[in-house]
């Protein structure tokens, strides 16, 4: 195996191929604090890419209720257990943020390139088992539908929604495992694709991807995966008017929790300093968003703002050692971060650069004994060629229902 540098682990690691990086990388930030699990993203993806025969079970985008849900079932606890078994008591981060344990490449069994498993058919069956469920579930029989009204349960224990797509990893496990070299990473944007001509459906990608995002199509007998809506990202989809546009799942997001873009890379794979790219700001400057299970070692490119009500041990296992810092950055946002967060879902186009025009003080308050001042700044978003896409203000109108109309349903 070759030695490659993984900045999320803070060290070199083993990988079957020599280090090589794309010019730009497809990346996104998901704010888990804001997701309402409406599944509009899942439906937007399904109705665009996976509505054909053989694709019925496929959800390239899925949203699961953690800690119980998973698609396929228990995908993360399974791979975590495999890693713990391969490296008992070793899966730890050191004080300086370096990962001391083994990645899925380093823990691979003899004669395999990656540690993994092939999910069973039954595990793919329930994309979001344990989703909000009626507690007054009474049925007289037909189709199991509830009689009369239904009431949602009050959640007494913590949970949160985890939005998942292919991470278009910098060191894809799917590509590492493919015996046909049918999987490749595009040099222009880092999107990872399966060449449908070369693929023979051996399902090694399905076995190797720790996030379980490649899926086998029993009809066409080849594997398929999220294609990062590349015609939109390229700006070659007729809808885009030639301007790079975010994917279907991102632009459909009702909760406005997703922002996707492209980041420029240095030759060594590190992110080029791009102070006014919103993704660069959130991941590298504010450090408010973190990769999902970085310890797997694939260097995933979807970053998450962690849910701040969830026990820290759980979050640290899921997002690595930066959790406390990310939550602090989110719960007391800087003036700049607050403005950057307004860029989410104001347009379908990819924002390459933002600028902030300072506005008047909107209000001042006190939280946890500290002064917090809110300014009504204006944030301006620009496309790749420098033209303005939109501008928006930080302060949003707050509408409170009058008491006599408090139940508007």
């Amino acid at each position, binding site marked *: 195996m070759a030695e490659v540098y993984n900045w999320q682990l803070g060290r070199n690691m083993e990988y079957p191929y020599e280090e090589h990086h794309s010019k730009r990388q497809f990346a996104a930030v998901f704010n888990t604090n804001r997701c309402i699990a409406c599944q509009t993203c899942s439906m937007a993806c399904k109705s665009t890419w996976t509505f054909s025969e053989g694709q019925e079970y496929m959800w390239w985008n899925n949203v699961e209720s953690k800690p119980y849900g998973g698609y396929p079932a228990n995908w993360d606890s399974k791979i975590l257990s495999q890693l713990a078994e391969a490296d008992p008591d070793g899966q730890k981060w050191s004080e300086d943020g370096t990962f001391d344990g083994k990645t899925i490449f380093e823990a691979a069994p003899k004669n395999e390139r990656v540690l993994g498993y092939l999910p069973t058919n039954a595990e793919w069956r329930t994309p979001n088992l344990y989703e909000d469920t009626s507690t007054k579930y009474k049925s007289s029989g*037909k189709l199991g539908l509830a009689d009369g009204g239904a009431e949602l349960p009050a959640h007494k224990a913590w949970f949160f929604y985890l939005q998942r797509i292919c991470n278009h990893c910098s060191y894809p496990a799917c590509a590492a495992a493919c015996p046909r070299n049918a999987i490749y990473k595009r040099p222009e944007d880092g999107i990872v694709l399966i060449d449908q001509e070369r693929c023979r459906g051996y399902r090694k990608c399905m076995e190797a991807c720790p996030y379980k995002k490649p899926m086998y199509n029993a009809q066409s007998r080849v594997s398929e995966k999220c294609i990062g809506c590349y015609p939109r990202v390229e700006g070659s989809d007729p809808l885009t008017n030639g301007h790079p546009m975010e994917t279907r799942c991102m632009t459909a997001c009702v909760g406005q929790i997703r922002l996707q873009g492209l980041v420029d890379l240095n030759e060594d794979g590190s992110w080029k300093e791009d102070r006014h790219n919103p993704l660069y700001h959130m991941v590298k400057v504010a450090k408010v968003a973190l990769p999902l299970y970085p310890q797997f070692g694939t260097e995933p490119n979807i970053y998450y703002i962690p849910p701040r009500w969830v026990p820290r041990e759980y979050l640290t296992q899921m997002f690595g050692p930066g959790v406390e810092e990310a939550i602090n950055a989110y719960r007391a946002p800087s003036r700049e971060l607050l403005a950057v967060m307004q860029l989410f879902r104001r347009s379908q186009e990819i924002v390459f650069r933002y600028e902030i025009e300072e506005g008047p003080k909107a209000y001042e308050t006190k939280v946890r004994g500290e002064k*917090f001042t809110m300014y009504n700044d204006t944030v301006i978003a620009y496309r790749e060629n420098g033209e303005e896409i939109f501008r928006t203000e930080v302060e949003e109108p707050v509408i409170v229902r009058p008491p006599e109309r408090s139940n508007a349903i």
Partner: protein
Amino acid sequence: MSGHDKEFDADDPMALVPAVMDVPMDEASYRQMAETFVEEYMLLGYSDEKIVGLFRNPFYRATHEILKTKGEAYVMDLIEEIRNG
């Protein structure tokens, strides 16, 4: 017989499986959740009175549930703590 007339079969492996996770409440994470609500409203610039109002109003289900379960003193203490640190 059309599909609509068929009886619901609990053994059907393809049927959707709803399940209620009746996990007992753990004090620390319950409080963490409650703190998150209060903090959100404070960052919006809401006064203490306005926030208490959201706990009293039954149409704000999540906050009202906390008041119902833990009582008004718990809510007042929570607000005081988040306000003053």
